[in-house]
């Protein structure tokens, strides 16, 4: 087996190294460029396809648990009708971070195939662990996904209730705390929080 692969690889290497005999340089460069554009377009289209709420809620694990909880919150329905979808909070918007997150998410595909949380009971058992991953991620990137929309410098504190304004000024304005420190469970129900520091 191994010698055969070696021979095949050697032949491939020889072909790649040799200058082209039949095709012009122009054809090869232009053809490579067009093929590259097509590949890149297809790749990004596929990537964005997995970055939609329809895709996320395609699995019953997401549709029946976390999506139902989201529906009662202000991030799903509110006075102005602006809403957040799953990837707005759970996938970084910057390209490199997004790719990193997508590679991590391959574990979720594994979980789907092997049914790690395919019943409500299993989901509740794993809920704290799953939540802790998200809290750790948001804590580490200073609540980047919140701040994609909620910019502290654009917050009009006078439009907030007095206590909210005070608390935001004291903790968020000073940079001592980040959004997720106080707003755990803003979009989904909280698991058993015994022993989890809040605020």
């Amino acid at each position, binding site marked *: 087996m191994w010698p055969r692969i070696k021979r095949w690889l050697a032949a491939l290497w020889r072909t790649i190294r040799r200058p082209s005999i039949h095709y012009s340089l122009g054809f090869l460069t232009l053809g490579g460029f067009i093929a590259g554009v097509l590949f890149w377009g297809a790749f990004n289209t596929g990537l964005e396809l997995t970055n939609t709420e329809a895709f996320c809620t395609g699995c019953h694990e997401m549709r029946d648990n976390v999506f139902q909880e989201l529906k009662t919150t202000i991030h799903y329905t509110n006075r102005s009708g602006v809403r957040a979808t799953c990837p707005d909070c759970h996938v970084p918007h910057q390209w490199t971070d997004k790719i990193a997150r997508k590679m991590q998410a391959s574990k979720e595909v594994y979980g789907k195939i092997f049914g790690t949380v395919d019943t409500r009971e299993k989901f509740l058992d794993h809920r704290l662990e799953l939540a802790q991953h998200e809290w750790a991620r948001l804590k580490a990137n200073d609540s980047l996904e919140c701040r994609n929309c909620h910019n502290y410098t654009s917050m009009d504190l006078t439009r907030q*209730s007095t*206590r909210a304004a005070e*608390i935001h000024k004291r903790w968020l304005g000073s940079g001592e705390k980040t959004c997720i420190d106080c707003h755990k469970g803003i979009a989904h129900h909280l698991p*058993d929080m015994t022993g989890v520091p809040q605020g």
Partner: protein
Amino acid sequence: MRQKPLIVILALVVLVAAAIGFAVGRKSSHEPRPVAVQATTSPAIASTAEPAPAGDQIDAIRRGAPVNQEIAAPLMARVENADIKRVRAYPMQPPTIPHSIDNYQIDKNSNRCLLCHARANADKFQAPPVSVTHYMDRNDQFLATISPRRYFCNQCHVVQTDAKPLVANNFKDIDSILSEEQDKKAN
């Protein structure tokens, strides 16, 4: 399929019966019914409260409308969110909540109120900490954490809305009664 004519006749009979039933049902539901909406006004604070229910009606939520009638729903009340503490109407009244508590999770997993009002967090959020009595069990023994019987905050503490009261009330707190007594004595 020698039974074919029989089946067709049967189906026709069923259809006709259904049509008659439908027509009768529609007609009877459109019959006008006598309506008696008459509000008897209570003398004292009538203007601030909804009109009292008519006749022997006891359900104030229906606002005097007969049970077979649907009236326009009143506007939804807004929760007062001004963060200004309200006076207690009587010494042992659970203080009302001066802010909105939309979507606050209070269940066996988590208690959103205690995020700010717990003893340990009150300073961070400048919130009034939960009273010491809430850390006591039935036998007045102090517990390390909130007493389970006090855990569900909004069993006693509620938000206030700008809704008109459904039933008028002329409650006077003890201070005003005492001062009235004194005024009487003085006169």
